[in-house]
């Protein structure tokens, strides 16, 4: 990333972004690789592309492993194509914490679009990032957005209760539940369900699906009426609960319609706050990367190494260490 300001990186980025935006799928794929690998051209490309992004509807799909996320994404692709929309998918699967390898298997369920250039599917390994996404997933979605796709679906790794990061990456967050996965107490726990704009009980053909949906509807009612929340306190979302059978497509057109309704409502007003929260999350992520990059500069590594040793040996506490490093970063010109 350190060379992102050099003219060569900027030139390479311009060529690649122009081709990608003009519809060259090979250039788009290579640009996504650059973003994923955080090569020198990625940052320059993202600077160019960001003003072009913001048109697509970015939808996050999350839920436990095996709840049917990939199958539902495939069904959503079909429904969106029927409506004439260009669809891109970023599907994240976990990287091994042991070897760094990954098995990216989400394409298995999304195969039938080889000849359709308005469908673009990209798998991504999480590469050690916790939270359900890779650290570069938001940037990848922005590239696809700027490249003209109407709908960008982000499929997270299989999540449990607290991987809520996707909500900061998406306009609309869909949380999938499978039938009979938990009782009403599971539904009132804090975490994943709180960030849902839509809750989908998938595998609607299985016994218990309707009961699970009814329980979720009963438990997800807000305790404070909309608008009555005390000033400054965030009011809870009230997600719609839908039932789908992704394998047959049942309920999927209704889901697409619900996604559209949510987007229109979110754009209509009240909701500048979520967009600001997402902007802040993106800025913070870049600031964290910038800090990490700066700490690897030769002028700073000696300071950093000494401070790390001191903390490791308990001669220094991490708070004082962080203050010292921030001070050193401020002293040394980038």
């Amino acid at each position, binding site marked *: 990333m350190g060379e992102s300001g050099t003219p060569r990186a900027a030139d390479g980025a311009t060529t690649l972004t122009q081709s990608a935006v003009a519809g060259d799928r090979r250039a788009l794929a*290579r640009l996504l690789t650059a973003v994923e690998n955080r090569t020198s051209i990625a940052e320059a490309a993202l600077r160019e592309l960001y003003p072009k992004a913001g048109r697509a509807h970015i939808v996050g799909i999350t839920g436990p492993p095996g709840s049917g996320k990939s199958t539902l994404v495939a069904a959503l692709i079909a429904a969106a194509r029927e409506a004439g929309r260009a669809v891109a998918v970023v599907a994240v699967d976990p990287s091994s*914490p042991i070897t*760094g*390898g*990954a098995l990216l298997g989400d*394409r298995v369920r999304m*195969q039938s679009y080889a000849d359709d250039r308005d469908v673009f599917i990209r798998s991504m*390994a999480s590469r050690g990032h916790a939270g359900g996404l890779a650290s570069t997933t938001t940037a990848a979605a922005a590239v696809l957005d700027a490249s003209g796709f109407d709908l960008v679906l982000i499929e997270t790794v299989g999540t449990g209760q607290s991987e809520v990061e996707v909500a900061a990456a998406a306009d609309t967050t869909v949380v999938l539940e499978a039938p009979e996965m938990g009782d009403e107490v599971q539904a009132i726990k804090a975490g994943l369900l709180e960030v849902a704009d839509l809750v989908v009980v998938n595998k609607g053909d299985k016994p218990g699906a309707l009961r699970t949906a009814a329980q979720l509807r009963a438990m997800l009612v807000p305790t404070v009426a909309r608008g009555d929340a005390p000033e400054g306190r965030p009011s809870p979302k009230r997600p719609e609960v839908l039932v789908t059978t992704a394998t047959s497509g049942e309920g999927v057109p209704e889901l697409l319609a619900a996604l559209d309704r949510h987007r229109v409502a979110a754009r209509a007003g009240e909701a500048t706050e979520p967009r600001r929260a997402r902007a802040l999350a993106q800025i913070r992520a870049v600031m964290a990367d910038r800090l990490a990059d700066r700490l690897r500069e030769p002028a700073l590594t000696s300071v950093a190494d000494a401070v790390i040793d001191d903390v490791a040996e308990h001669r220094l506490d991490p708070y004082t260490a962080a203050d010292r490093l921030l001070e050193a970063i401020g002293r040394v010109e980038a």
Partner: protein
Amino acid sequence: MGPSAPYNPGMPDRPIKVLIAKPGLDGHDRGAKVLARGLRDEGFEVVYTGLRQTPEMVATAALQEDVDVVGLSILSGAHMTLVPRITKLLKDNGLDDVLVTVGGIIPDDDVGPLKDAGVAAVFGPGTTIASVAEFLRANARPRD
């Protein structure tokens, strides 16, 4: 790269990305799955596409995923039809820098023609995962 990068000593900073695909109609995917899993354990990022891929599906997946390697598993005997079509489609899509390997039941006499069609290596029964991994590390073209 990220601060968490160097946990994988056998790999460059960016893992090599491999597409494992089963073109054609045979349903024997155990080998492809074992290899996909084995390469995962060797630190590769493996995109697994599953059974019954058309050459067009393989080429599209390779393009969209921007993989370094395409590994084809074929046990049906249709390799002389499928493989050249896939390598041609890859070339047509500007993917001639992608390493193509074939695994499965391939008669010795077919290995030469497959290599002429652009295949870098043919792995028959008994090939170890470690030797496949070694070949890919040595031959996948390093890309920007």
